[in-house]
């Protein structure tokens, strides 16, 4: 019997050791995996009990943690003017996760960034709660408001970007439709889920995508800025080269006809120089030009302008696409006027204007002005940084000249503001036709001002509007933005 009892002891000891093994596996060997598990909300819970840093515009918080006694957590995230900033800040939510800047700036806002190590240590020893840093944005609150106000109908899918070509700082970035981020930040998960459902039903809105940097749409004729740069770079064209401008041109290798816009002024000349073509946004010359540039030429120039490149502002910008592999000549011709598989973000076209404004150099777009520690010490202040050299200063100068035409006498006349030398290019990309034949288009205008010393690059994008609304509204919004910037 004693023998059996000893064996029982051995068996139980083995079982206990297996239990210890299980505990060691969970608490030591596998702990990191468990901590990183998507279902694990502990880190989040911990963050929700701590004061999170604010996101500031002009020194005033647009997102901040305020003390609350809702019984669940110590702090509630509160957004000021949420409709203005929803696509920038995103939201900080227990039920819906964390998005946009709230997510990208998380290390700063929670104070876990390595630059705040000293503050964390100090908090540990003084017994005070560790606080997150605040982040001041480059956004100009007045411009942001002006951009929002300039959009006449908030259910319209519109985006307005204002940036500084010399520094890359983004001064305004607004998209509609928008929503109230406070609705998603509520602590009650059932309420948050209900609100999220309501928001997901708004047409043309995704709570996860900032349209200015996340929506890929056809750029239409606004892309001709880049096509023209490529044409000039090829050496086969210069500012005075006469280029054929027929009413209709057959796309190479097909029977498909490409035409200039119906009632336009393009038809007045069957051969024209770039200035006329650019101002009136004629299409047919680009068939010849695209063939002269070729696939490699386009691949090269689009890459320099930022297509296909990773960019964080600090939100991740969806790379714009201009596929050149296995692209036939007729497809290339369509892509040269911003159609077919040529897809860009509004920010890409803003960067295009920035390149021309800044002698061919694109400064890295950026939204963070500075990071301020809880003791008001500035711990980070991003310096203007070069993103790429899009083209030579000479060609940038030529384009600057060309972009005068649309404003002076062409397609962008409705954006003209007396006393401000605006340079711009419009674009209209046909998306589809309604049942009654009304064309639905993406409407663009991108440009910069003033020409001699560009202070701002402005881009307006309207997605899926009918042609007339698009053309008129885009120009009108551009005009209002120029007025807002220059106090006219």
């Amino acid at each position, binding site marked *: 019997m*004693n023998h*059996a009892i000893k064996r029982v002891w051995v068996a*139980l000891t083995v079982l*206990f050791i297996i239990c210890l093994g299980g505990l060691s596996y969970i*608490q*030591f060997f596998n702990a*990191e995996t468990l*901590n990183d598990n998507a*279902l694990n909300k*502990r880190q989040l819970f911990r963050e929700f009990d701590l004061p999170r840093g604010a996101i500031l515009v002009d020194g005033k918080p647009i997102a901040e943690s305020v003390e609350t006694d809702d019984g669940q957590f110590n702090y509630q995230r509160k957004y000021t003017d949420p409709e203005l900033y929803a696509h920038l800040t995103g939201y900080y939510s227990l039920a819906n996760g964390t998005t946009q800047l709230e997510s990208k700036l998380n290390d700063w806002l929670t104070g876990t960034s390595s630059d705040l190590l000293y503050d964390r240590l100090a908090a540990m020893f003084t017994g005070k709660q560790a606080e997150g840093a605040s982040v001041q944005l480059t956004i100009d609150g007045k411009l942001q408001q002006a951009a929002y106000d300039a959009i006449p109908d908030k259910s319209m899918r519109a985006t307005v970007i204002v940036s500084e070509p010399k520094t890359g700082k983004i001064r305004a970035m607004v998209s509609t439709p928008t929503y109230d981020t406070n609705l998603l930040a509520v602590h009650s998960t059932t309420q948050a889920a209900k609100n999220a459902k309501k928001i997901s039903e708004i047409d043309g809105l995704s709570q996860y995508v900032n349209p200015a940097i996340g929506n890929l749409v056809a750029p239409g004729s606004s892309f001709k800025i880049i096509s023209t740069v490529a044409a000039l770079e090829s050496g086969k064209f210069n500012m005075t080269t006469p280029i054929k401008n027929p009413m209709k041109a057959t796309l190479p290798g097909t029977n498909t006809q490409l035409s200039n816009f119906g009632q336009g002024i393009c038809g007045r000349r069957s051969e024209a120089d770039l200035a006329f073509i650019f101002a009136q946004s004629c299409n047919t010359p680009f068939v010849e030009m695209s063939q002269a540039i070729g696939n490699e030429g386009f691949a090269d120039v689009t890459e320099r302008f930022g297509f296909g490149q990773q960019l964080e502002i600090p939100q991740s910008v969806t790379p714009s696409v201009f596929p050149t592999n296995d692209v036939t000549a007729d497809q290339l011709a369509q892509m040269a006027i911003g159609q077919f598989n040529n897809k860009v973000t509004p920010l890409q076209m803003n960067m295009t204007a920035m390149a021309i404004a800044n002698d061919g150099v694109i400064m890295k777009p950026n939204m963070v002005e500075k990071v301020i520690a809880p003791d008001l010490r500035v711990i980070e202040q991003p310096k203007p940084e070069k993103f790429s050299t899009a083209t030579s200063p000479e060609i940038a100068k030529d384009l600057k000249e060309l972009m005068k035409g649309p404003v002076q006498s062409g397609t962008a006349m409705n954006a003209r503001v007396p006393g401000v030398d605006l340079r711009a290019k419009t674009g209209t990309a046909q998306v589809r036709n309604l049942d009654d034949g009304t064309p639905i288009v993406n409407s663009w205008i991108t440009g910069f001002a003033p020409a001699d010393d560009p202070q701002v690059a402005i881009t307006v994008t309207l997605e899926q509007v009918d042609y007339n609304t698009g053309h008129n509204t885009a120009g009108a919004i551009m005009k209002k933005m120029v007025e807002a910037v220059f106090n006219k």
Partner: protein
Amino acid sequence: MTDVQTAPVPRRNLELLLLLLALCVGGSAFFLVGSASEVSDNKNFIIQMSIMTFLALIIHVLLRIFAKYADPVILPITVALNSLGLAMIHRIDIAKGTSQSARQLMWTAIAVVVAGIVLWAVKDHRILRKFTYIALLVSIVLLLLPLIPKLGVTINGARIWIRIAGFSLQPGELAKITLSIFFAGYLSSNRDLILMAGRKFGPLQLPRMRDMAPMVIAWLLSIGVLVIQRDLGSAILFFGLFILMIYVATSRISWVLIGLSMVAAGGIFAYTTMDHVQRRVNVWLNAFDPEIYQARGGSAQIVEGLFGMADGGLFGTGLGGGSPYRVPLANSDMIIASFGEEIGLIGVTAIVLLFLLLVSRGLRAALGSRDTFGKLLASGLAFTLGLQCVVIIGGVTRLIPLTGLATPFMAAGGSSLLANWIIIALLLLISHNARRPMAGAVGPTDEIATPKSSTLKERLAVIKH
């Protein structure tokens, strides 16, 4: 006899020293819990620790009187575990605004008083052998009590509770003891018959059916518990107890194999016929599936426990520093996870080792016991304690499906405390019997010592208690 035996030493002073150490451990845990939270006064701490100290000293004094040769380690470990459990329940209370720790302390007091009564009334464990069949009867009654309409209540899907005068009781917890007494009594009497009689069947010696009948009844009872009361944990416990007792009685591995195959048969039967068993197994295997995690009665409990323990890591967040209250049932089923989170792998390992030490001391009492009944009873009781720990820790660490077994002495719950304290009282008595000086050269015997003081009637009353 050529063995030179050292004279037995009572070692009660060592126990007192260890007891003070144990109270210090529990007390500092209690203090840390209180000071980490923002509760301004630590009044609770002083009151609760004083009560705990008083209770521990009652048992210590009773041991000095009735069982002065009892193992000096058993009581301190129990007190340490019990007060650590109280501290953790108090900690969860602070976070949740509940007052479970006061209830737990009250139950501790009841349990310790009952354990004291057992020490005083039983004095010699061999008396219990007289109640072999009464113990079986009591076991059956205890297990069937929750099935009586109006008396029984279903909590968390298991019908293992009864409610009397506002108190919820789990009579099955006490059945662990009565069943151990029955198995020990029955097997010590019929051991030879089971071993000798019967046909040989290959390498296995099969007993005669009539010798096995009471055992089969006990086995069916445990199956019944599983089927009717939907309590997987208790079923495992009773199966385990059953197999262990037969093995210790016969020393034959073949019996373990027979027992295990019966368990396997029972398990397969349960799995194929019962939804809740299938659901348990599914939750266990696919715990990290988001759908199962979010499902009602899904894996959220176990997974949150795992996250908590991972969060605690090697050193833990410190008592009061973590958030164990995010885990459902953090102060009962998942209390090990709560400890894992707040005192880390190192702390929880210490707790597991305390349990192992306690179980080892119980088995040591069995080894030293001079009578078969004592050996069987002590190993049964010690094994019950050990198996409970292993099943619940295995469940919390997802080595096996999670069951609702209570972590002995720690988990919030009165019945479990009461039962486990009675087990401790019995183990103390058996160890006293094993270690006390022998009156003459008496070998292992099955004889019952002459009752000294109390009458049979009184003792019966105690056992029914």
